[in-house]
């Protein structure tokens, strides 16, 4: 992908001028008939797509208060208009959150509101034509569902909800996106997004045990499908083989080893990611999450811990209890949830993020570190969007910001923050989230990374930062690809548990 060029940094990072139509032609590959049908969608665009799309939209409006309120409440104030990384990077006005929402709102007004039926031009209402549908496909696949716009909206309108609804409508008429739908097929067929079959996984884990043994002289285990283990680790499948992800997997295993925790991975649920959220389909979201419930029941685990993955943690933290009962506080008559909740150990939050697990162990004094092992790194932390704005860690609001930073500071000596307008709740998406981490969208991904690259450059120049830690598989994959295009070393990005792994002192437990 050498032909893709990085856009220049903005001299003063102000709002860019509009370039209407800049990303108009951009479309990710359309899902094939086989891919769509495998997950229950029409194979290709159906004849009566117009009527079915409007009917589906009506159904979603009655099932999701978010969509209903968000379609009505926008006043076009423009608070969100300069907040999207894709708008900043592409300058295409339709990548302004409000304009992206309006692609759907204009149709909503035409078919579901009185003024739109009577005076469409006046209120910006449009018929759902083939051109509009194509525009939906293009621009709703240029949103990474990162929720940055929702932080700034005076009504909390979350474009991610609108994007999810739009993708759901598109899927329902056979106009699905290849990357996401293919992956959902794989997770059902094989157990994970990358399509790694059980035996390959076992091989990989055995190889890892040997590598760690060679490096440390200690037998750190990577157990698979162990009945009666205390902890079930659910982690993104990229952790099993991709760089730098795998270094964090080694980190988790070392933490479990050093704390004497009995744990296991699962070959059936070897994936934390849940692309059902990206396409806004509740059935898929639920079905993919159900694998974890089934495995937890089958193995009889007491705790479910989730590895470093942004949207997976949002789904796990915010949705698992709803979808599958992984959590606490179900009604006593709720037999479905109680079945699992009775088994789980409620002295701990269910599910637990791996950072919560590690930080808890650090606070208890169960782990010790040789911080100097990380002295070659000057570290900064990139808050991953879905963790930052769609989840929490610990007992207090904002724990998702503090806990990973606390871990980094506990295992390393050199830590600096990036500009505060780009971290914590105001963090920028890496540019590859929300089902866009595919080569057919590389141009968008490079441009969308611009705001993060600008502030990374600042701390590189001012503090010599050479390591950007993050806790998301997509961030890691996206930055590995995009960093070189902006002139950085691809190994600048890595996991928090990669740093833990470097510094942890393993006993002989």
């Amino acid at each position: 992908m050498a032909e893709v060029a990085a856009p220049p940094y903005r001299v003063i990072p102000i709002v860019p001028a509009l370039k209407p139509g800049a990303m108009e032609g951009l479309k990710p590959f359309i899902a094939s008939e086989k891919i769509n049908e495998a997950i229950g969608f029409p194979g290709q665009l159906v004849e009566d797509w117009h009527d079915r799309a409007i009917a589906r939209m009506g159904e979603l409006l009655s099932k999701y208060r978010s969509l209903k309120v968000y379609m009505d409440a926008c006043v076009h104030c423009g608070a969100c208009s300069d907040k999207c990384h894709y708008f900043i990077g592409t300058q295409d006005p339709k990548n302004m959150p409000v304009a992206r929402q309006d692609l759907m709102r204009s149709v909503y007004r035409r078919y579901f509101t009185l003024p739109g039926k009577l005076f469409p031009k006046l209120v910006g209402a449009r018929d759902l034509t083939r051109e509009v549908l194509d525009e939906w496909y293009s621009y709703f696949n240029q949103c990474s569902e990162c929720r940055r716009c929702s932080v700034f909206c005076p009504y909390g309108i979350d474009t991610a909800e609108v994007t999810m609804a739009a993708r759901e409508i598109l899927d329902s008429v056979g106009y699905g996106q290849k990357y996401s739908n293919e992956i959902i097929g794989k997770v059902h067929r094989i157990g994970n997004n990358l399509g790694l079959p059980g035996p390959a996984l076992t091989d990989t884990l055995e190889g890892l045990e040997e590598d760690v043994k060679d490096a440390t002289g200690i037998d750190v285990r990577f157990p698979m499908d162990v009945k009666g283990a205390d902890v079930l680790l659910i982690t993104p499948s990229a952790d099993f083989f991709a760089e730098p992800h795998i270094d964090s997997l080694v980190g988790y295993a070392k933490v479990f080893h050093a704390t004497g925790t009995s744990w296991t991975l699962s070959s059936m649920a070897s994936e934390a990611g849940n692309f059902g959220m990206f396409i806004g389909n509740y059935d898929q979201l639920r079905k993919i999450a159900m694998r974890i419930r089934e495995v937890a029941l089958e193995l009889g685990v007491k705790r479910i811990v989730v590895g470093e993955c942004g949207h997976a943690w949002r789904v796990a933290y915010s949705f698992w209890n709803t979808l599958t009962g992984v959590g606490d506080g179900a009604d006593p008559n709720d037999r479905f949830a109680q079945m699992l909740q009775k088994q789980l150990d409620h002295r701990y939050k269910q599910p637990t993020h791996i950072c919560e697990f590690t930080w808890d162990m650090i606070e208890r004094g169960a782990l010790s570190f040789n911080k100097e092992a990380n002295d070659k790194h000057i570290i900064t932390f990139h808050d991953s969007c879905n963790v930052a704005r769609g989840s929490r860690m610990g007992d207090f609001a904002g724990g998702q910001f503090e806990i990973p930073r606390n871990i980094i500071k506990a295992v390393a000596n050199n830590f600096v923050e990036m500009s505060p307008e780009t971290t914590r709740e105001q963090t920028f998406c890496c540019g590859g989230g929300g089902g866009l981490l595919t080569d057919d969208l590389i141009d968008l991904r490079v441009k969308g990374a611009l705001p993060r690259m600008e502030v990374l450059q600042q701390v590189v120049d001012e503090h010599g930062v050479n390591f950007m830690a993050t806790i998301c598989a997509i961030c890691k994959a996206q930055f590995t690809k995009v960093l070189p295009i902006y002139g950085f070393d691809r190994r600048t990005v890595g996991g928090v548990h990669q740093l833990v792994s470097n510094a942890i002192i393993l006993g002989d437990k």
Partner: protein
Amino acid sequence: MADILFAILFYFATLMFVVGLLYRINTYWRTPAPLLIPTTPAPTTQTGVVLRMTREVVFFESLFKANLWTWSMGWLFHASLALVLVRHLRYFTEPVWGWVAVAQPFGMYAGLTMLLGLCGLWARRLFVERIRYISTPSDHLMLALLVGIAASGLLMTFVTHADVVGVKNFFQSWMQFSIGALPGDPVLYIHLLSVAVLLVIFPISKLLHAPGVFFSPSRNQADNPREKRHIAAWAAEMEK
């Protein structure tokens, strides 16, 4: 003749406003929110949610983070409007409530700041490229309508000095379902007509942001998904 027309117009407009708004609120109320989606960091308790919503509605907290110009003009307009509305309660209360009487001089000048806020917002809509791009004709008309209401009101307060006693008598009768005499004042006609239009379009336009904000799941949900199971009726059906 004008007396009867305006009386009927206001019965109609009030009915549309009240029924329309109740219908909308009922729809929002009854539409389920199947997933917990507060924009985090979010309060973990209901009390925290009330505080967050209060900050949002009273101070426009999110807008403050987003853009100071829009925030200052928007907040100025809304706060002024609130004072102006309070001031107008004197037409509908007899004797006038004490705190409404106290607010009178503030409400008078709030009319000016309301107009200022509106002009600031309109300027932004006209001169900032991004905001111009997203504006529809109705966005401009809405501002025109509000500017018309504010300007005609100010004109009566400071220049033409409308017969406020006459107006009050008219609305006192109107509230008793009888038709009194409305002062024959063209500026007053414009003012009342614009207000009636605003009432009618309120429940079918973007003015629904007012009730909508209270139903926005990203703002009104507590962040407690691990502690308590949240499930919508239609989603619970899938477990049977």
